């Protein structure tokens, strides 16, 4: 038997060029029906549109609850719905945070087809943030809401530490956009820490990161949203321009200080009208110095970013393969065996691959200039933001950082008055 097998192997291995039907289709004598090859379909396209409609409805409901109804309980219930629907039911994909990369890739790659749902998931939260503040973060985003449910004993993050940590999302956004624009990878999706929890399966390091973030979130409220989320950068900008942003008091602020401790995200700005102001001239001097520094920071950042091209480009599979083949040729190494095998099978020339890798590195160098420049400007602007002190005469939410979660409303005595009045009218 073994001999026959070996012979058969030798026989057919010489015939490997004939890929199909080495053995003829059998002619069955008895009645035998050929079974169908099963092909279970994906989720229907209708459900896709339903998702977009649900997103729009959830955003509208969140806006109404925060701005009109001013109800924390309503926001809380919507939060639970979002965790269940956008998280555990939809398994976290596609989310607005990841949609940044789809849109970036679409802008830079002519061949990439942008799904309508990705476009909607990108645009709708931004439009709502432009009009009503970050209601998306408050009760719709599954990543945010799952952390929101974990806030038990919020502590204040020291503001100097918070200022530095707030720069991380910019770096993350810059790198994510760079990798997406070069068609290399969707790193934001890959490193999404909560998706493995929604799917109840995933890579262990990422899952552990998610669990650790949730545990940190018991004390430091919503750590991913504040100090990591790349979409928060865009939402922050849009929310700063928002037309109807949530306010702590429904009426005029009486400066009773009751709301001071109510925000777990340290997003309430305390009035500073009674503080001693620094002399105007020194402030102006510092501002001028920082404005002069800004272009240097931008150029320096851009230069540093462009120097990272070789390191960053290694994330791209084409570049990695080209480097591996070069190293294999130079020494007796066997790196990336499967990739090499597939490359040899594809009949592509090595030179073409090297050219491709070179083009990609150039793209990374160019992109690195933009990314580094962007980060430099962001750093400079945050320095300016720290150095400028605006006069505030009442307790206000920091429009950029405020997540419109409605926690502070009930701490305001004016809010209690309003509810009493409402009840009287209702009676």
């Amino acid at each position, binding site marked *: *038997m*073994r001999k026959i*097998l070996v012979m058969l192997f030798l026989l*057919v*291995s010489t015939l490997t060029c004939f*890929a*199909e*039907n*080495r*053995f003829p*289709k059998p002619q069955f*004598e008895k009645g*035998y029906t*050929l079974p*169908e*090859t*099963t092909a279970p*379909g*994906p989720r229907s*396209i209708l459900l*896709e549109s339903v998702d977009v409609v649900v997103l729009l409805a959830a955003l509208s409901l969140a806006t109404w609850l925060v*701005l009109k109804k001013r109800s924390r309980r309503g926001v809380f219930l919507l939060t639970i719905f979002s965790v269940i629907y956008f998280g555990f039911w939809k398994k976290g994909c*596609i989310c607005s945070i*990841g*949609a940044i*990369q789809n849109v970036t890739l*679409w802008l830079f790659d*002519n*061949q990439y*087809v*942008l*799904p*309508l*749902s990705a476009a909607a998931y990108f*645009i709708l939260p*931004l*439009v709502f943030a*432009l009009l009503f503040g970050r209601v998306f973060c408050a009760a719709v985003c599954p990543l945010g809401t799952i952390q929101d449910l974990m806030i038990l004993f919020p502590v204040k993050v020291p503001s100097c530490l918070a200022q530095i940590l707030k720069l991380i999302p910019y770096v993350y956004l810059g790198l994510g956009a760079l990798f997406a624009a070069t068609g290399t990878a*969707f790193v934001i*999706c*890959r490193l999404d820490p909560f998706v*493995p929890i929604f*799917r109840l*399966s*995933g*890579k262990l390091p990422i899952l552990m990161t998610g669990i650790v973030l949730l545990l940190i979130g018991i004390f430091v409220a919503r750590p991913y949203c504040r100090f990591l989320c790349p979409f928060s950068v865009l939402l922050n900008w*849009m929310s700063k*321009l928002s*037309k*109807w942003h949530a*306010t702590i008091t429904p009426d*005029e602020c009486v400066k009773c200080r009751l709301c001071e401790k109510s925000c777990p995200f340290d997003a309430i700005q305390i009035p500073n009208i009674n503080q001693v102001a620094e002399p105007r001239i020194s402030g102006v001097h510092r501002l001028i110095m920082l404005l002069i520094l800004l272009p240097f920071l931008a150029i320096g950042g851009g230069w540093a970013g462009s120097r990272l091209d070789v390191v960053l480009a290694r994330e791209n*599979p084409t570049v990695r393969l080209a480097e591996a083949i070069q190293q294999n040729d130079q020494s007796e190494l066997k790196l*990336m065996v*499967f*990739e090499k*095998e*597939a490359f040899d*099978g594809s009949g592509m020339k090595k030179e073409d691959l090297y050219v491709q890798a070179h083009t990609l590195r150039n793209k990374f160098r160019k992109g690195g200039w933009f990314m580094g420049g962007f980060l430099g400007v962001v750093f400079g602007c945050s320095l300016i933001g720290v150095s400028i002190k605006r006069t505030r005469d*009442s307790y206000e939410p920091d429009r950029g950082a405020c997540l419109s979660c409605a926690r502070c409303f009930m701490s305001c005595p004016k809010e209690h008055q309003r509810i009493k009045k409402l009840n009287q009218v209702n009676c």
Partner: protein
Amino acid sequence: MPGTCKGMQTELTKPQSRRDFIRGILRNVFLAVLACFGGTVILRKVCLKADGADHGKACSGCPDLVRCKSPYSWLARPVSTRRTVWQLDPAKCIQCGRCATNCVLRISAVKCVHRFEMCGYCKLCFGFFQPGADTLTSAAENQMCPTGAIRRKFIEEPYYEYTIDESLCIGCGRCVKTCGAFGNGSLILQVRHDLCVNCNECSIARNCPAGAYRRVPADEPYLFKPASQNT
């Protein structure tokens, strides 16, 4: 305090501060940009309808869209309501075994699929038996499949039917490799869409050495026919 939730009334009666004025302008600019973006998406959706003027192709199916230097070429960027899903091209697949280990699901969504119409119903199936199996029985030491997911059923001499138990299949592709090398190649690996969660970035696609993974339209989610190399 301007900009309260009371809305328009206070805005109109109170004079706008300079900051609010700049904010308003910037807000309208951003709204316009987002509206343009959304408009493009919807416009392209209309243009890309299969029975539309462009027959589903941008710029009347211009093949040089990639190299197009026109400043308006971005308008022709494809946008679609056609949902895409991940699928692997059996023609490119080299059966490295990474599908079994790299999926975000604990048991991979990639399964071996048997195309019965290509199968030779061999008594000695190269996908089923280990090379050099002593006897042609379904004893575990004879089987190629590490999980015993292939079922062998006698039909009539000398034909045997092979079916895949997908609940056991882990998508390692060992049977696919030998069936493709020595047999008809009726066993292929495919992403099963009832299991696949359709990640934005497919974790297997990222690790596929042959670049066999690509997004395909959701209404034709399987690549059963061996696709040509240059597509």
